[in-house]
């Protein structure tokens, strides 16, 4: 059976003009299949985050062509891109970016309320289930600001998962976690990829984390130097 291509980058290039014109990304081409757990690695400043923002549809200022699940993303309206992110992409960053005035449960519910696919009651149940999966059922009704760093990061992951996104994108999602929590998060992501056929693209500096993923794409000075580094 042919694997379904979820994410396709075709000759993606980007310039920064400040302080002077320089090419951050140079003809980046690769593809990611459904259910793959891919990590992006490379030295600091090699352009990993820049690439991830383009893949996530938030940065639209680039050359080349981006396709997600067969849909051409390059050149789409902001409005369509926002709707697409809401439905198909979950984000986890190094920092959690939770809304501190909201309880954990409501933080997790926000993207689902925006999407409107389920009733409020269903959303609440689903959010609760995601929190439970991440071992946070006791914290559900606490204000997110009252949690520890590791707990907050897991709430952010639960929020990224609430709409059952096609792709989960992470920029150093375990960057602020200790090794135990990193292990927990890794297992959850791996399970999502292999069990639920969700696609994961995560930037990481953690060699161990990268080694355990399905595939690693390595960047150097804005160029892909390997797309199938299998350990």
């Amino acid at each position, binding site marked *: 059976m042919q694997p379904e291509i979820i994410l396709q980058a075709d000759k993606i290039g980007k310039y920064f003009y400040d302080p002077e014109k320089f090419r951050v990304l140079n003809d980046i081409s690769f593809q990611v299949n459904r259910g793959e757990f891919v990590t992006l690695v490379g030295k600091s400043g090699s352009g990993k985050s820049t690439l991830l923002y383009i893949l996530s549809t938030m940065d639209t200022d680039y050359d080349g062509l981006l396709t997600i699940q067969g849909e051409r993303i390059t050149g789409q309206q*902001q409005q369509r891109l926002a709707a697409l992110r809401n439905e198909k992409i979950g984000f986890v960053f190094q920092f959690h*970016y939770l809304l501190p*005035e909201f309880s954990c449960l409501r933080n997790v519910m*926000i993207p689902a*309320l*925006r999407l409107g696919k389920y009733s*409020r009651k269903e959303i609440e149940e689903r959010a609760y289930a995601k929190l439970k999966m991440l071992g946070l059922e006791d914290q559900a009704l606490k204000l997110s600001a009252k949690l520890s760093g590791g707990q907050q990061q897991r709430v952010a992951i639960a929020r990224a998962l609430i709409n059952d996104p096609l792709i989960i994108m992470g920029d150093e999602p375990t960057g602020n976690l200790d090794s135990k929590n990193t292990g927990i998060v890794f297992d959850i992501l791996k399970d999502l990829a292999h069990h639920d056929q969700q696609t994961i693209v995560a930037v990481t500096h953690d060699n161990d984390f990268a080694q355990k993923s399905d595939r690693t794409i390595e960047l150097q000075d804005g160029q892909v130097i390997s797309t199938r580094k299998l350990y």
Partner: protein
Amino acid sequence: MAGTHRHNIDSEISITYITTSRKLTAVAALGVTIGIAIYIFMNSMAAGFSRKSDASIFKNVPHIRVYKDDEISTPLSPATHSGSLPLIVNPRVIPESQKIINPDQVLALLKQQPEVVIATPQVGVDVFYNSGRTQIAGVASGVEIAEADKMFSISETIVEGSIQALKNTPNGMLVGVGVASKMSVKTGDNITITSSRNVTKVMKVVGMFKTSNSNTDKTKSYININSARQLKQESPSYVSDIDVNVKDYDHAPAYSQQLSFLTGYKAEDWKAANETLVAAGRMRTIMINFISLSILLVAGFGIYNILNMTINQKINEIAILKAMGFQGRDVVRIFVQQAMLIGGVGIIFGLLCCSTMIFFLSRVYVGGDIGYFPITYEPEMYARGILFGLIVTFFAGYFPARKAANVDPVSIFRK
């Protein structure tokens, strides 16, 4: 697919932002409360003042005065047929041009108009009040006293005698207190007056009136219209002016044109007759509007500031919301709604606040012929206050919200 359920998540977020920063919200709302209260209060006060000053105008001036304008003889009579010469004369007022020729018909016609409330004939006479060797110049106003009373509220100014007494006494006369004291007459005494046509009549003082204008009191008197006709040596149907009151005196200028067209005589409305007063009133209204709107605007800046602050504080949250698929217009809605909720609460308290102020001020007795402080609950000012309040808060929210909507999440996540 998406969108089968509509959850109002934007409102949920804005309400949460408000309830979690109560102090800031309260301060911003208080600004609006004060702005709205002052706006409505000042404008209601201005409206009360102009109504009072209009009322004092209408003690002497009808809404519309219909009269025959002076006619000037044409200086040049062109040649009527070939051979004759054109005639040049000095232009001058044609005598006998000042009267309304068919007063009964004109009166009947005016009274038929639906917007006309009162139409009453009037004959004004310039007179001298004689007392021994002293003469005081003045004006005797020949009126149908009952109708004139309805129009000018004369009975409110009567300090001695009565309106009824004038009606019952053909040669009766109501004099201003100033005239009475100069002539040292009291009710029941006789007084001799001489008209500009040199007719002298002995009148009987049947009452005295005291207006707020001492100059009027020193010169004016009311007599029956027939006495006035005799003083002017005119026929018993002679009428120099017809005074008209209409339902809505603000529309008097428009009606006066209609009436003029209808009757063929000049109809002058009170605004035209009192241009300076009207202009002064307009100036006052503009000034008060200007000041009170500025105060409202300052209140708007309060909301603007607090929203700007909130947005700067929450820039990370805005970025993640946008990353998670909130559209620019969702972000605008979140913050505009927040502004409108703050503004709404502020407006409600503002209404309560100014209603309280009006309640107490309208019970303050200031004396004179003003009596109680002339302020009432003005529905129009309330409506305008609410409208301007909403507009100001909308924009106070919209500008920062638009800035928030344009936040580029990538630039935030890079920090």
